[in-house]
């Protein structure tokens, strides 16, 4: 065990500190100093060199718009969390009243603030009030799902209004209502009905956690759109949000692969496949990325060739004709996947097919290792088929890993911009379609000459990620 050294013995042992001082210095200078410096400079108009004037919260006002809305939302966020977490308040009715009361109070506070301080017309203030109610209703619902331990199944039905709100938000941000409903239904269908079935209803938490994250995402995102900040930033968050939504089903192939590899009888093959799955990881990521970029090249690329070869292109052309996509797919021309503003997001979503992440597979395999063969034999005797085995034996065991992976994926997606930077440079793709927040930060700092503004963007991202990490640590338990 470690030697305990009190202050009295310090005289003889002070030299031991020299073992850690170099690391501390290094980390302090190259990790802490930049972080603190970013926080400091977020309040400055700074171009990185000569111009450096204190501007107060101007950067944040430019980014977030009316941030009374934000402040109150976060205050309410904390409040709702507090109410929902108080386990000694047994009465659901009390919780509900407290929640709704705080909601109305908060919305009113915003409306009054907007009216009184920001020269808002009364109508606008009224609109704010309505909007704030909506937002907090969503939040409240989200946290109901997050926390309430009793009546698990009943609460699922409360999600229906949540879906309307979600769809309304997606619609309000400029997408067609069909698309909005598609997304909502997709996720509802999958996570509310399949996952709970999967867990056979002993722990719906997984589904609820997910729904809450999605609701939370929609909530902040709607808020960002509404508050009148930098529209580029918030449409960037929209893109991130869509990418996150589509990244979730992309986790399925890894899970399926891990389960199948795990079920193999022979240990040798098990190891053999593990090794094979590691190989894509050791190919440099940049090579993989550039290969996929090459795939999407319109004339030489493989992707269009595969589409034509498998006749999917004909289907797409027919669909284009049928649904009036405006000639994105036309007979005789090759779609420019990475150069067309309508195609670049689908291309991004298809990127990396079949989406088997090596680390993902290995994480799940590690989680599955605990299942002994006798469990499978018992299931066989009971006559369970492969899917039942998956839902009753394997899924519950790797649920923790799935959740952790999911949160890490969300955090990762929030931070990614290197990928887009490589493909399109600082412009963010055709018509700035893929201008994600990280890229906006990069562009503002290195070519816009607005390093202070960029630091403020970085801080907003930082804050969101910290919030997610905190939620992850607090609510997603790692029980082994």
């Amino acid at each position, binding site marked *: 065990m470690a030697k305990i050294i009190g202050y009295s013995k310090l005289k003889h042992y002070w030299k031991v*500190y020299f073992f850690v001082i170099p690391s501390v210095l290094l980390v302090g200078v190259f990790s802490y100093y930049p972080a603190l410096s970013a926080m400091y400079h977020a309040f400055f108009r700074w171009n990185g060199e000569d111009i450096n004037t204190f501007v107060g919260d101007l950067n944040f006002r430019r980014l977030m718009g009316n941030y009374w809305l934000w402040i109150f939302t976060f205050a309410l966020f904390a409040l709702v969390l507090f109410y929902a977490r108080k386990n000694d308040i047994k009465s659901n009715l009390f919780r509900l009243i407290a929640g709704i009361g705080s909601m109305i109070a908060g919305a009113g506070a915003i409306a009054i603030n907007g009216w009184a301080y920001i020269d808002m017309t009364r109508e606008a203030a009224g609109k704010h009030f309505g909007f704030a109610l909506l937002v907090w209703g969503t939040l409240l619902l989200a946290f109901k799902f997050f926390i309430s331990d009793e009546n698990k199944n009943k609460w699922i039905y409360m999600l229906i209004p949540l879906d309307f709100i979600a769809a309304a938000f997606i619609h309000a941000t400029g997408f067609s209502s069909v698309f909005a409903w598609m997304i909502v239904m997709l996720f509802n269908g999958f996570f509310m009905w399949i996952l709970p079935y999967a867990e056979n209803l002993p722990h719906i938490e997984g589904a609820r956690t997910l729904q809450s994250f999605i609701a939370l995402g929609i909530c902040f995102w709607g808020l960002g759109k509404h508050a009148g900040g930098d529209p580029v930033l918030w449409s960037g968050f929209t893109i991130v949000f869509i990418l996150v939504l589509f990244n979730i089903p992309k986790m399925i192939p890894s899970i399926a692969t891990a389960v199948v590899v795990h079920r193999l009888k022979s240990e040798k093959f098990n190891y053999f496949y593990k090794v094979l799955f590691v190989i894509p990881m050791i190919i440099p990521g940049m090579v993989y990325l550039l*290969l996929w970029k090459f795939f999407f090249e319109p004339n030489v690329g493989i992707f269009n060739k595969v589409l034509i070869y498998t006749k999917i292109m004909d289907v797409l052309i027919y669909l284009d004709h049928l649904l009036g996509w405006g000639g994105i797919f036309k007979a005789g021309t090759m779609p420019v996947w990475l150069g067309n503003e309508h195609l670049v997001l689908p291309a991004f979503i298809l990127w990396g097919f079949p989406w088997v992440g090596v680390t993902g597979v290995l994480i799940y395999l590690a989680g599955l290792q605990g299942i002994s063969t006798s469990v499978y034999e018992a299931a066989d005797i009971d006559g369970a088929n492969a899917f039942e085995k998956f839902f009753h034996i394997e899924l519950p065991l790797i649920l923790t890993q799935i959740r952790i992976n999911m949160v890490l994926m969300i955090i990762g997606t929030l931070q990614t911009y290197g990928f887009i*930077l490589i493909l399109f440079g600082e412009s963010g793709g055709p018509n700035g379609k893929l201008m994600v927040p990280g890229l906006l930060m990069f562009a503002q700092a290195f070519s816009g000459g607005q390093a202070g503004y960029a630091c403020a963007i970085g801080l907003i991202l930082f804050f969101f990620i910290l919030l997610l990490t905190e939620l992850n640590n607090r609510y997603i338990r790692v029980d082994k």
Partner: protein
Amino acid sequence: MKLGCKTKSIFSELSKHLFIFLILAMSFFPFYVMLTISGKTNAQFAGNPWTFMMPFHWENFTVAWNMVSGYIFNTIFICVTSIILTFGLTLNAAFFFARYRMPGHKALWYFFLILMLMPGIANLIPLFMLLKNLNLLNTFWALIIVDTAGAQVVQIYILRNFIEEIPQDLFDAAEVDGATLLQQVYNIVLPMSGSILSTLGILQFISIWNSYILPLVVIRDDNMLPLAVGLVRMDSEYVKNWGQLMAGYTISSIPMIIIFIFTMRLFVKGLSSAAVKG
């Protein structure tokens, strides 16, 4: 499966293998394409994009080697220097945390641990300015130092757990023999931690091999670029000779594959354990 009949069992095993094979085939498809095209001229590629083709143009590889070898050596230099530096620092720091409870021990520990939670996204711009003020722009040292600093936390965390498990008797015996603390680290800890260090080294190697954004903003000279940035620069030239590009990609994958062949077991174990910690 003892109860089921044997043919059914074989069939189910086969279907599993088939599934894995399909997934693997799709995962490896990009690399197959890379290899096939690397031996073709543009005309050959236009004629037949799918399969290997004779004559296989090995000269693509010679041209590509001239393009990427510089980048590869730069990256290897950065990787090796940074990994050695990192080990030098983290072994000592982990030894400090594992073997001694000095006053301020807890505070120092949290000093490192908090960094694990802090997202680094806001750091880039001030970091760039800092490197600029230190006159490190356009040098390898900028990358080496930042990579070393970035690897500290995780490695200290893992190595601390490892060193704590080494029996105290060894250290006591060394102390009786009059070994200094540094000697204890380099004669007891270092020889014992071979496998864990190589896993950590491999992980760091992969991350440096793939790092893009910092080198992009820090390095200006073309002959000093590390691999990732160099490949993108190669790709962005206008007249594209796909065969040579793909040969370049192939060559830049080779060093990693060589390392992989020698350390296969460690690699799989390391990635699994890192994944679990993830």
